[in-house]
């Protein structure tokens, strides 16, 4: 089936809000090439479970496509129109299973050496879309905070090597009540700028007491979900004919109820958390990976005004000789390895913050928990500098803003 054959009733399987949204644009969708449309539908079908920033972007994109003349559509999407597709892709159920289509398309583009052409087409489209519908600037400069090194008593190596060039390094930070203080700062911003899903606290371990108004995700709280996921995977892997691609499809189809989330929960957040575990690589195994990936996805999707990420020690990767001893002791933690993971994670958090609108006004703080080291980055702080002046975390934040 081709996009030109689309009819409104073919979206009856979509969740209610998505169906309502998409049926208003069927004539516009009929004009789009098949190499393009399922990528858009993959987002539309998730509309009911999207964050407000994502919804706005999708609505704008659909409205824009609807407003273009046939000639303009041809011009905007000519790169996609030149992508050759297989009959198998054309005959797949790309309306109801757009994510599977995109996965197969990705594989097909690699094998037919069309990935570069697709990439160029996608970049050109994104550039034009951005020019027509520029992203909305935040009502207040964003703030990112990352806390690393929980459980590490001492560390010899230099920290924050990748971030030092971008901000000011402080070596005499007052660490007293640091976590509590930073959580209060986040809570205060939440109260001052009450935006849905606008203020996040992500913890790679057990969440510390915090303002319930914050959007909170913690690795510890998801322990029953991780156990349920692990049990399901074990059962599926043993089924005959199961392979990596079938497994990936199965993971993509898992819903919060399948993994024990209560029906009365926040549907958007429940779906988000399931995706962190089913779509993230390594998030099920290592808490540091979970915290980094969740922060990345929160920034990309929800575009929060405030994000505090606290890394916690992950389980230790046991060397081969220990595994061969076949002991089943409780998993040990690896605080030092986790500090190295978190140091890189902090850099990625900053990079991802920089990708959002208003980045030049945003500020960022990374602190070695319980210790005296921190980096603050912000529009008014000099780059690549060092300070050994005694300062509290609150002071660092005020300098960075």
């Amino acid at each position, binding site marked *: 089936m081709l996009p030109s054959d689309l009819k409104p009733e073919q979206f009856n399987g979509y969740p209610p809000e998505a169906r309502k949204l998409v049926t208003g644009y069927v004539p516009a969708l009929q004009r789009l090439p098949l190499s393009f449309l399922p990528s858009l539908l993959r987002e539309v079908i998730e509309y009911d479970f999207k964050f407000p920033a994502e919804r706005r972007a999708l609505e704008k994109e659909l409205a824009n496509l609807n407003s273009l003349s046939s000639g303009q559509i041809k011009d905007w999407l000519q790169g996609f129109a030149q992508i050759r597709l297989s009959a198998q892709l054309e005959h797949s159920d790309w309306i109801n299973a757009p994510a599977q289509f995109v996965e197969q398309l990705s594989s097909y583009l690699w094998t037919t*050496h069309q990935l570069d052409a697709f990439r160029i087409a*996608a970049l050109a489209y994104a550039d034009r879309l951005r020019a027509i519908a520029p992203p909305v600037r935040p009502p207040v400069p964003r703030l990112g905070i990352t806390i690393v090194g929980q459980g590490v008593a001492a560390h010899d190596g230099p920290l924050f090597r990748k971030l030092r060039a971008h901000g000011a390094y402080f070596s005499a930070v007052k660490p007293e009540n640091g976590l509590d203080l930073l959580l209060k700062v986040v809570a205060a911003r939440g109260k001052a700028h009450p935006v849905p899903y606008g203020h996040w606290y992500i913890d790679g371990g057990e969440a510390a007491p915090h303002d319930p108004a914050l959007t909170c995700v913690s690795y510890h709280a998801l322990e029953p979900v991780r156990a349920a996921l692990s049990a399901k995977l074990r059962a599926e892997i043993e089924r005959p004919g199961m392979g990596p691609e079938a497994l990936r499809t199965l993971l993509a189809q898992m819903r919060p109820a399948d993994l024990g989330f209560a029906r009365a929960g926040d549907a958007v957040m429940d779906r988000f958390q399931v995706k962190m575990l089913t779509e993230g690589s390594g998030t099920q195994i290592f808490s*540091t990976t979970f915290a980094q990936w969740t922060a990345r996805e929160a920034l990309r999707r929800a575009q929060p005004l405030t994000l505090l990420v606290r890394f916690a020690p992950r389980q230790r990767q*046991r060397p081969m000789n220990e595994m*061969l001893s076949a002991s089943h002791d409780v998993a040990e933690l690896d605080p030092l390895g986790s500090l190295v993971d978190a140091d890189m994670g902090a850099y*990625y958090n900053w990079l*991802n913050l920089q990708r959002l609108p208003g980045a030049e006004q945003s500020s960022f703080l990374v602190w070695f928990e319980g210790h005296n080291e921190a980096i603050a980055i912000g529009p008014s702080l000099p780059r690549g500098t060092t300070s050994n002046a005694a300062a509290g975390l609150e002071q660092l934040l005020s300098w960075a803003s």
Partner: protein
Amino acid sequence: MEGVPFGMSSHFSLLSAKDRARLAAGRGLAPQELAQQLAWTRREFLRSATGVVLGSSLLPSSLIAAAGISASKRKVVVITFGGGARDQETFAPEGQENIPRLMRELIPQSTFFTQVVNRGILGHYVATASLATGVYETINNFASLPPEHPTVFEYFRKDLRRPASDAWVVAPSNGFNRIGESSHRSYGPGLGARVILPKHLLTAATSGGGTDYEHLLRDNYETPFYTPELGGNEFALQQLGMMLKLSVDDFKAHARTLSSPDELSVYIVRQLMRQQAPSLLWITMHDIDIAHAGAYSLYIDGIRRTDRLCADIWKTIQSEPEYAGKTTLFILPDFGRDSDDDSGGNGFQHHRTGDALSRTTWMMALGAGVREGVVFDRPMESTDLVPTLGSILGFSASLAQGKPISELL
């Protein structure tokens, strides 16, 4: 970077987005220009850190003849540098601490190529198959399929009438069990390399085990939940006893002293070199690919271990009478990993964006017939390896797409 949330419209974020060029070098740089830039940078890092000199393709050739070893006596060992590593964790100033043995011991003895581009699919099995055939293979990375084009092992054995015991592959995971022999109708069955999968051997030797053991045998970091089953345990144990002259008990005891699957592979490699002394030996490392689990410290540990193991293999080559003085060693990654600056990826964790950083790798050659301490930055492709091996060993890789590397001939 204002107004560029994750590169593009969100629905393309998984396939690609803004690439390294746009952030690091300004908009509009073509992938070829990026690859060239990367090669120059790599070259300068090497020149300043190891004292190697810039090579020229106009240097006198016929190195093979100059080595004074007939093609029939030459041996080649190829190591694929396990799972891909980026410059910033290896050859860049901040990464050199992770590869001390390559920097201090191997590179000064090698001819180094800074711009080896892989234009194929960036999955480990299919990319390794492409390296071994000299053709960009398009087989499913996660299926147990043979390469479609003749492998270097088949060219070598058919053209030179070599026995099966003269070409071996040591590979990390069950998914590589078909790498030694293609499905090509003019080659294929009976003409390929013997493939040994050390983890499979360990499975056979221990026949079972608990949860920890399953974790150890995790086959593939790209699909960590899935381990394809392989039959043939009896054959695997025969390999141990008859070919490697190892008892099951000795093998198990030694495995208990090793910290990673790649260490196990190198242990097997040493046994192979002593007991079978194959003329063509291909070793695929894989520990670095733990990066897919997202833990940066483990990725760095993998690089450091691979660095050490490469140097250990070189030491073994130099100390084994069957190999010393007549062996050329090639070390190259199958591809790189995603750049931090490409918002479509997640930095070091994967190799999914197809950006220039993940496609542009390096290769070093050292040993018999190779100039020492020279670096070349001209572009070449990873498919050039097989025709080059053909020129060194005296066979024709007639169906390979690449060209022999003139600087090594």
